[in-house]
């Protein structure tokens, strides 16, 4: 891969190199200067130290020479004294020998260095000696020495050859001094033997440095004493430089003696003792002299080293600091360059982003994305692919740079079969620097054929979804893409993901809005409509409110104002409510209004609530059609009113019946006592007739109040219609036609046949009276599907009586069922006809509806429970399903009514159950106490005998806990009996009359609960 910052990188590296070079040179100079200084200083110091050595050597030699000179001067004085001891007077008057010997011995004690003293005659014979063995003294002298002493004219001390004492083995130095008379005649020779060891001891006592040597020699080079080396005494050093050159040129001085056998260079200081023909030299080891210098040199070197190290270290720190500075600058410059490139890419991203929001064209957007990534990364080709739902392929959706446009739609293998397939599978960016060596996925033939060698594939990661879209940029070069290219690709993928997410969110939002059960729109802060749902559009279409965008963009407030001007009621309320929500931040408001639509008047509930539109307060407006609810509410209200009226009426009728009973009863009995034809009897008959009419009236009132005693049974409506038409054919006027709309199939109702008959007669008479100018009365019936608005599982039949008469106003229709409400003239009607129909329908478990249009006619429909024997009722799939579940079970049925028992047995047989019967609770308990197994018990609630259905349930629970049970009752609320029985358990109650379906469903639910 290219390193985009390489050029400037090199430049900065060379700056650092140059700086390093300069810094090295400066450091070298500093180090050189320090080294030179230290070396010169050390050399100077060395010379100084050596000079000091020379000075020391000289001073030592001088000091020792002085000491030696004083010794020899003392010896000369001693010899002079000794030479004058024997003579007492003129020659021949010598003193006694033993006395002199004592005095000589005393003399030797004055100088420890002097071993023996002797006084010789001029011919060399020993006259006196400090020792008893004078020959030992003589032996030390060689003849030449003595002769020279005797014959010489000198008066000074003469030094002999150091010699080994023949008696003691010590080295001694013989010295002699001629003793002359005043005329110069040699009278005696005083000789002394000097102990060389003693001399050496003297030198050894000197505080000399290690390795130093002291030499005392005669000036002709014969060694007298050498400290520390004694073995050279008596040998001649005449050939050595000291004697061969230095002593000759100067009586004192110093020089450097080259290394001898021990390898030591010495500094030698010397002093000539001319009075005694002696030379004294002190040799010092140069290494010793330079010892302190070496220490100093070592310290200096260490110091210099520290300085060098400090310089190098400082230089390094300096270099690093500089390099860091340079790198920072370099990074700044590089960042600038990258920022420029980034800016270009950001422009591309921004442009695409803008386009993503503007365009709805998915394909074109994809193409632009493909072009953008190929342009911005310098790739030769680019594609955008999506995984096929089969999971086997990925399909190219858009492409850029490919010579063949057919690449769009091309299928590549999913998973490791292709670069993009692999990327979608892993859900991560996959960079391939060289397809030839790629091991993770296959180098697809299409890429090979186009000479593609490297590529980046980036998955488009949508929120909460598996990636299925992928961007791919490709190059014919190897390693053609940089990290920046990868990041760029990823940001484009992100952009694409946002757009795809947004589309999903849009469709979700639309789906959510469309699922709202009402007309919905959103308005912005100015009241302008910015969003509507499908119901809104449908309502607009259905009611001719066509607007190209269904009101989008128009001001809702303006619409309200226009409606206000044209006098639409409630428009002002919506307007003001919306203003309060939009302007004053009111929370929300709602109200209900009536509105004329194409299919008649509808009730709507309007709900306006504030919506935060990114800082601006808009409003969400819904109009929900509540016509059905309104009508149900009104029906309920009506039902409550009728109920109240019914209770009142029922109460009155009951009391009236008591009174009528007394009147009728007494009249009857009185009649037996009054003969026919008398006036008394006629008066009594009048009372009876009036009482009978009163009884009829209370009967109707009770019917309305649903306190009639009903005896329901299966009624074939077709037959009933036939009876009615037969009865009324002659009664109705000629201008009135009575039609029966024969149903396709037999309609069987479950109701009291007599009461139903009466109700239908009532309706027909009402219809007749509504058609003073003639018309048609149509009787019809139909089996209602189960989906109708009845809560019961049982189906209903609808009986309709329709006329083509005057119809009635809404107000009249609303009050038509009220007792004593009549539009007929006084005496023509009681106002109880429709009330009675209403009461009967309700009491039968159904309902009655009246629809009327003034001038067109009235239609009254009664819905009453259908009989279970209806043919269509026997066809449900549910039944088959339930029947299968129940097959093979055994049921105990407790029912005292033969007809009901037959009916239940029939149904259970059909379900496949075996049935055992009991006529009352007592018998049922007896059966349950036996060993017969039952899966379920069905029992009537109210049965003859002491054991009611509830008593049976309680007992059965004790006998067989968990045995499923269903109670059956003709009473909607047998609560009173429940209370009487002290029953407190929940047992499903099946209301009579029930259908086959209701029985099966209840049984299934009870058995399921048990399971």
């Amino acid at each position, binding site marked *: 891969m290219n390193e985009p910052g390489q050029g400037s990188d090199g430049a900065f590296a060379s700056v650092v190199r140059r700086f390093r070079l300069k810094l090295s040179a400066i450091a070298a100079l500093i180090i050189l200067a320090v080294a030179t200084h230290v070396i010169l200083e050390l050399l100077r110091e060395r010379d100084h130290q050596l000079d000091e050595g020379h000075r020391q050597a000289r001073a030592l030699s001088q000091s020792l020479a002085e000491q030696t000179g004083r010794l020899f001067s003392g010896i000369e004085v001693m010899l002079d004294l000794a030479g004058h001891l024997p003579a007492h007077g003129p020659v021949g008057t010598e003193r006694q020998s033993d006395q002199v010997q004592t005095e000589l011995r005393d003399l030797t004690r004055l100088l420890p260095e002097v071993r023996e003293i002797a006084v010789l005659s001029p011919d060399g014979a020993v006259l006196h000696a400090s020792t008893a063995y004078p020959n030992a003294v003589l032996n030390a002298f060689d003849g030449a020495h003595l002769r020279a002493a005797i014959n010489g004219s000198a008066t000074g001390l003469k030094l002999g050859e150091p010699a080994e004492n023949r008696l003691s083995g010590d080295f001694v130095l013989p010295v002699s001094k001629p003793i002359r008379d005043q005329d110069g005649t040699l009278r005696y020779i005083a000789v002394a033997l000097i102990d060389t060891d003693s001399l050496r001891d003297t030198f050894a006592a000197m505080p000399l440095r290690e390795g130093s040597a002291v030499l005392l020699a005669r000036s002709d080079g014969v060694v007298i004493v050498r400290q520390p080396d004694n073995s050279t005494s008596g040998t001649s050093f005449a050939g050595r430089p000291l004697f061969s050159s230095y002593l000759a040129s100067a009586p004192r001085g110093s020089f450097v003696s080259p290394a001898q056998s021990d390898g030591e260079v010495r500094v030698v200081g010397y002093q000539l003792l001319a009075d005694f023909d002696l030379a004294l030299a002190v040799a010092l080891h140069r290494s010793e002299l330079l010892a302190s210098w070496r220490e100093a040199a070592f310290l200096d070197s260490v110091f210099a080293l520290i300085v060098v190290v400090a310089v190098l270290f400082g230089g390094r720190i300096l270099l690093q600091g500089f390099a860091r500075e340079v790198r920072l600058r370099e990074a700044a410059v590089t960042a600038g360059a990258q920022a420029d490139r980034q800016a270009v890419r950001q422009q591309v991203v921004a442009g695409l982003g803008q386009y993503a929001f503007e365009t709805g064209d998915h394909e074109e957007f994809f193409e632009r994305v493909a072009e953008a990534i190929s342009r911005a990364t310098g790739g030769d080709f680019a594609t955008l692919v999506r995984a096929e739902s089969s999971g086997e392929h990925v399909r190219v959706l858009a492409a850029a740079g490919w010579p063949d446009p057919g690449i769009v739609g091309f299928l590549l293998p999913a998973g490791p079969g292709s670069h993009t397939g692999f990327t979608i599978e892993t859900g991560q960016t996959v960079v391939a620097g060289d397809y030839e060596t790629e091991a993770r996925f296959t180098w697809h033939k299409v890429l090979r054929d186009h000479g593609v060698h490297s590529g980046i594939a980036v998955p488009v990661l949508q929120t909460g979804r598996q990636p299925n879209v992928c961007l791919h940029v490709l190059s014919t070069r190897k390693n053609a893409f940089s990290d920046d290219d990868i990041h760029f690709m990823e940001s484009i993928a992100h952009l694409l993901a946002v757009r795809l997410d947004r589309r999903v969110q849009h469709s979700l939002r639309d789906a959510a809005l469309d699922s709202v059960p009402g007309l919905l729109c959103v308005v912005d802060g100015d009241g302008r409509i910015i969003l509507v749902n499908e119901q809104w559009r449908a309502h607009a279409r259905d009611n001719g409110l066509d607007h190209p965008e269904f009101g989008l963009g128009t001001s809702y407030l303006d619409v309200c104002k226009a409606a206000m001007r044209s006098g639409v009621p409630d428009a002002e309320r919506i307007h003001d409510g919306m203003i309060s929500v939009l302007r004053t931040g009111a929370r929300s408001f709602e109200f209900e209004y009536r509105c004329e639509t194409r299919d008649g008047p509808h009730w709507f509930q309007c709900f306006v609530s504030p919506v935060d539109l990114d800082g601006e307060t808009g409003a969400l407006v819904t109009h929900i059609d509540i016509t059905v609810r309104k009508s149900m509410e009104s029906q309920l209200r009506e039902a409550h009113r009728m109920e109240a009226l019914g209770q009142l009426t*029922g109460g009155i*009728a*009951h*009391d*009236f*019946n*008591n*009174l*009528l*009973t*007394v*009147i*009728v*009863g*007494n009249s*009857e*009995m009185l009649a037996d006592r009054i003969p026919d034809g008398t006036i008394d009897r006629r008066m009594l008959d009048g009372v009876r007739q009036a*009482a009978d009419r009163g*009884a009829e009236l*209370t009967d109707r009132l*009770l019917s309305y*109040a*649903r*306190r*009639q*005693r*009903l005896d329901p049974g299966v009624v074939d409506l077709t037959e009933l219609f036939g009876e009615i038409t037969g009865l009324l054919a002659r009664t109705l006027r000629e201008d009135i036609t009575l039609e029966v709309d024969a149903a396709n199939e037999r309609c069987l109702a479950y109701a009291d046949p007599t009461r139903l008959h009466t109700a239908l007669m009532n309706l027909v008479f009402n219809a007749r009276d509504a058609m003073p100018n003639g018309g048609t009365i149509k009787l019809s019936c139909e089996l209602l599907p189960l989906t109708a608005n009845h809560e019961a599982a049982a189906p209903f039949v609808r009986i309709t009586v329709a006329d083509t008469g005057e119809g009635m106003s809404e107000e009249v229709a609303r009050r038509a069922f009220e007792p004593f409400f009549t539009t007929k003239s006084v005496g023509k009607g009681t106002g109880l006809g429709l009330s009675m129909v209403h009461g009967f329908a*309700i*009491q*039968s*478990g159904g309902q009655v509806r009246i629809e009327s249009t003034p001038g067109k006619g009235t239609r009254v429909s009664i819905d009453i429970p259908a009989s279970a024997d209806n043919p269509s009722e026997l066809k449900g799939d549910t039944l088959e399903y339930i029947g299968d579940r129940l097959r093979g079970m055994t049921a105990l049925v407790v029912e*005292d009514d033969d007809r009901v028992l037959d009916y239940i047995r029939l149904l259970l047989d059909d379900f496949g159950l075996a049935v055992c019967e009991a006529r009352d609770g007592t018998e049922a308990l007896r059966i349950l106490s036996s060993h017969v197994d039952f899966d379920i018990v069905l029992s009537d609630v*109210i*049965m*003859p*005998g*002491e054991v*009611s259905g509830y008593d049976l349930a309680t007992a059965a629970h004790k006998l067989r806990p968990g045995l499923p049970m269903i109670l059956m009752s*003709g*009473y*909607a*609320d*047998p609560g*009173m*009996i429940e209370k*009487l029985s002290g029953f407190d358990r929940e047992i499903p109650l099946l209301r009579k009359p029930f259908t086959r379906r209701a029985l099966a469903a209840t049984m299934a639910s009870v058995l399921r609960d048990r399971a």
Partner: protein
Amino acid sequence: MKVLIVDDDPLIGEMLVTAFDLAGYSVMVAKNGDVALDRIKQSKPDIVVTDIIMPTREGIETIREIRRLFADLPIIAISGGGMLDAVSLLDVAEKFGANATLTKPFLPQQLLEKVRELTRAG
């Protein structure tokens, strides 16, 4: 032959007493169920005629109690339109042991016929 009439309405009671007197029955009247049960225990009537809606003790309950204590005593229930929801109390009364029912208003003759039927059978 003794008849017990159970009704809280004195007019009805009086009318029925007259009717049964005339027909040659011995008649007693009880104002409510409790009194009725006492009378039955004391006087052992041959048949009971009871109204269903009475103030102190529901007629249905009275019927249940009578039937519990005296399994063979014939009972005729009468009512002027009392309903238990959608079903007539007379049906309920029958279930709980009334041997016959009669809706008010009725003729004394109708009641006497039912009494004769039941006592003959008994």
